[in-house]
Structures are given as C-alpha cells and as structure tokens.
C-alpha cells in the first residue's frame, strides 16, 4: 500500500512541477535564451582566439562553440537547481510547503521526489537547448557536430549532475529564511560556481593563466559536472566526474533532509513554525 501511495505522491509532485513550469513560460524561455545568447554571442567573440587543440574527450582540434556546449548544459541545470531552491523558499513563504511536509510520507521521500521533479524539468530544458544546437548544425549556422549517440549517452550524466545541482539548491534553500535573500545565492553561488570552473575555458588553459584559480576550479564540483557531461556527449565515461558529482549529490541531499527534519533541522531551530 505504501508503495502505491509513494508512486501516486511522486506522480503528484511531478504533475505540479510540470504544471507550474509550463505556466511560467518566461522561465522556459529564459532557460533557453540564456545559454543561446552565450553560445551565439560569447562563442562568436572567442572562437577566433580560443580554438582548442585535441585533448580528451576531443580527438581533433575543435572550435570554441563545441567546447562551450557542455558548460552551457550544466549552466541550464545550475540555474534550474537554484530556481528550484527559489521555488522551495517561495513555497515556504506562501505556505504550500506545509501541505507537502504534512503528508503521511517519510520526509526523505518527499524531498527526493521534489528533487526528482526538478531534475525532470532540467532535462527538458537541456534537451530543448540541445535540440536547437542540433538545428544550428543542420542549418549550418554553427558547426557543433555532436555525435548522435551523444544525445543518448549524455542522459545519465545529466541526471546525476541535475541531482547534484538540485540537491545543492535544496540544501541552500533550508538556510535562506526570506525570498529577498535569494539575490545572495546569485552572487555567492551561481556566478562563482559557473565562472570558477571548466565551463568556459579548459583546465589546462586556466592552469597556464593562474595556478591558484586552477586549484579553485578543481575544488568546485560544478567543474566535474561539466566534464562528466562533456565526456558523455562524446560517448565516453568520466569516472572521477561521476564519483565527485554523485558524492556531492548524496551529501547535499543528506544535508537537505537533515535541515528539513522536524526534530533536528535548521527549520526547527529557526523558532518559526513551518
């Protein structure tokens, strides 16, 4: 009986997440426009100077826009993870989080379902972006040249990285008391995570420029998410990436479950019901 209940509840949480996502058309549009602007504008500016010599997973010299694709996929998921975090804070302020937390289901299951719903939405966004990238190649706007199998092999990588970024957002949401404080997340989480990583420049080039910056990149789990996606898009598996991303996802989810625990978590210590 419990399994049926869990299945229906998971379906309910997915149902609401997708309903909200499709109602917020601006969110869908911005999720697509943001990486497309980066791809078209930023890469166009850099392609003359930033062509890359062969290094794994690339077998040949690649133009800069191909290099950027995995970073942009991860960027979509990063923004979506933080959007989910924002939506949890909003739900808490609007009270609908209480409805979720007072269902007769284990707290870990509720949070994991919410996370899964966020990952599903991020997959939709990434595949929409990859679809447009495919059309760019087909109509020779850009030469992105992603192998067809890559669209399939990238799926597990996107699921793991989506989990990691969503769980990070969820853990963060438990520490943010008001919606207004979310701007801090933009400044202190999203931008540093994205820029201090291999999303825009390869690690060997960063190392050449600054060893300290390179070290920061190495300690940033987002770097591993980007590299995991990069290898997967070319049909290859990046073990270190999978381990770091998987572990970060588990630790973040554990922190979120702890934080939302009614007896021990940050929510209880805040002294504010619900």
């Amino acid at each position: 009986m419990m399994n049926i209940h869990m299945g229906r509840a998971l379906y309910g949480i997915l149902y609401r997440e997708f309903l909200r996502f499709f109602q917020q058309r601006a969110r869908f549009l911005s999720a697509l426009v943001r990486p497309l602007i980066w791809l078209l504008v930023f890469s166009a500016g850099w392609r003359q100077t930033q062509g890359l010599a062969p290094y794994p997973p690339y077998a040949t010299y690649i133009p800069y826009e191909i290099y950027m694709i995995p970073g942009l996929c991860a960027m979509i998921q990063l923004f979506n993870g933080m959007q989910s975090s924002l939506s949890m804070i909003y739900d808490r302020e609007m009270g609908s989080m209480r409805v979720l937390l007072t269902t007769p289901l284990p707290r870990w299951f509720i949070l994991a379902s919410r996370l899964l719903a966020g990952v599903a939405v991020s997959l939709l966004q990434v595949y929409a972006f990859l679809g447009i990238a495919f059309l760019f190649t087909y109509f020779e706007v850009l030469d992105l040249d992603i192998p067809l199998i890559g669209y399939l092999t990238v799926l597990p990588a996107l699921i793991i990285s989506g989990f990691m970024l969503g769980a990070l957002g969820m853990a963060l949401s438990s520490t943010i008391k008001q919606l207004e404080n979310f701007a801090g997340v933009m400044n202190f989480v999203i931008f540093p995570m994205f820029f201090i990583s291999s999303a825009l420049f390869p690690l060997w080039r960063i190392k050449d420029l600054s060893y300290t910056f390179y070290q920061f990149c190495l300690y940033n789990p987002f770097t591993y998410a980007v590299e995991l996606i990069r290898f997967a898009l070319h049909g290859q598996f990046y073990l270190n990436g999978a381990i770091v991303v998987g572990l970060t996802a588990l630790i973040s989810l554990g922190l979120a479950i702890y934080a939302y625990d009614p007896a021990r978590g940050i929510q209880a210590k805040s002294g504010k019901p619900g």
Partner: protein
Amino acid sequence: MNASDKTETPAISIEGVSYNYGARKALDDVSFKVWPGAFTALLGANGAGKSTLLSLITRLFDTGVGKISIDGKSFKEDGAKALGPLGVVFQQTTLDLDLSVRQNLKYFSRLRGMSSKFANQRIDETLSSLEMLERIDERVRDLNGGHRRRVEIARAMLHKPKLLLLDEPTVGLDIHTRGVIVDHIHKLAKEENIAVLWTTHLMDEIWDEDNLIVLDKGRIIEDGSVKDVLGRVGAPDITSAFESLIHGEEERLR
C-alpha cells in the same frame, strides 16, 4: 459524555508535551484529548503557544518530550504515517495560486495516495458541499479570500480525515462567510463524526455544545465542555470566562 466514559480511540491525544525554543519554554507539559464528533475550540492569547502546538500536531516540529497520537498512531512509533487521518487548514493560505481549484485538489489527492477515481468523486462531493463546484476550473488567484478558504476546507476533507485541524480559519473573512464556514464545520463534526480542533480569537465562533481548551503561556489552564468551563469559572459567557482565566492565571503566577 465525560472523557472517562469514552471507549473509542481519541482522534488526537496529547500527553505531557513540552517544547522549548532554546531557553524559552513555549509549551509546558500540555495534555488533552479530542474525540470523534466533537468540535473543540483552542483559545489562547498571542504567544500562548497555539502555533507551536499546531506545528507539533502537524509534525512540522518534533519534540522528544511527551507523546502525540492521531487516531491511536503516535509520531514516535509510526512516524509520518500517523499524519494519515489528519486534515489541516492553516491560517495562511497554502493553495498554489497559479493552479486551478481542480489542479490544487488533484495535486493534494495524489500526495494523499488517493486513486484518480476516488479523488474525482471526493473533489465533486467536497466542493459541492461548500458550493464551490462551479468554480472548479478557476485559478485560485482569481478567487476571493472566502472562496479560497472554502477550497482549503474542501482539500482538508478530501481524504476523509478523522481529525480536522483549523488554525484561525476565519481570519480576514466577512461576517457572512465566517458564519457559513463556522456552521459547515460544526455540521461536519456532528454528521460525519469528525473531530475538529479549531483555534480562534473570536468567541462567537464557539457554540454552547462545543468543547473548550484554554492555553496560556504554554500551559493548559482549562479543558472541558463550554458549559462545564463556564460553570467552573462562574462566568456568564466565554469572553468573560477567558478574561477571568487569563487574569486569574496572571495573579496566580505573581
């Protein structure tokens, strides 16, 4: 009927519950029971501990001191499962404003593990009983406060709860809507044998046949039927009784 006469399981049983925010005691050894079919009003001034108590009953908070059981199942032994027979209407609107009434109720029915067929049937029944069926496809954002409150009551009743918890559900509503909601909930308690725990500041929402629990500074200072409480305090009405109890408690603590 006295509590000692009861042979059935209480819809909610609170036994020796205490809760602290750091060094500040919010609830101190709180115990009471609410029985099926009874409308019980929980009265208390601001800061008396009502919100903390409701957060504990809904398991938004947890405490290691004391025991809370809903329909015989305790959080300690059964965890979140104990929330199964509970329906809640929070003081703040908890509906998703961008979804329609139907979508909100469908979402809740799935969270409660209801089958689609049963959910559709209950959505029709509960909305009809609150005269809201014709608004089913409207966005909640487009409804007024009274209609939103009715939808929340319909949602809380969707899974046929044994205990209905309402936290100041008439705050901000006009007199007519207040009357409709108070009447409806009293009727539900009587006709469907549901235990109702209703927190309020508004004494006219409490009827003579109801039960009354008065909470002050985290402690229960009165618990019984309205008639018994009025008799014990020697007051002509609930407002006078409440004033007398609160001031009496202040005197006692001095």
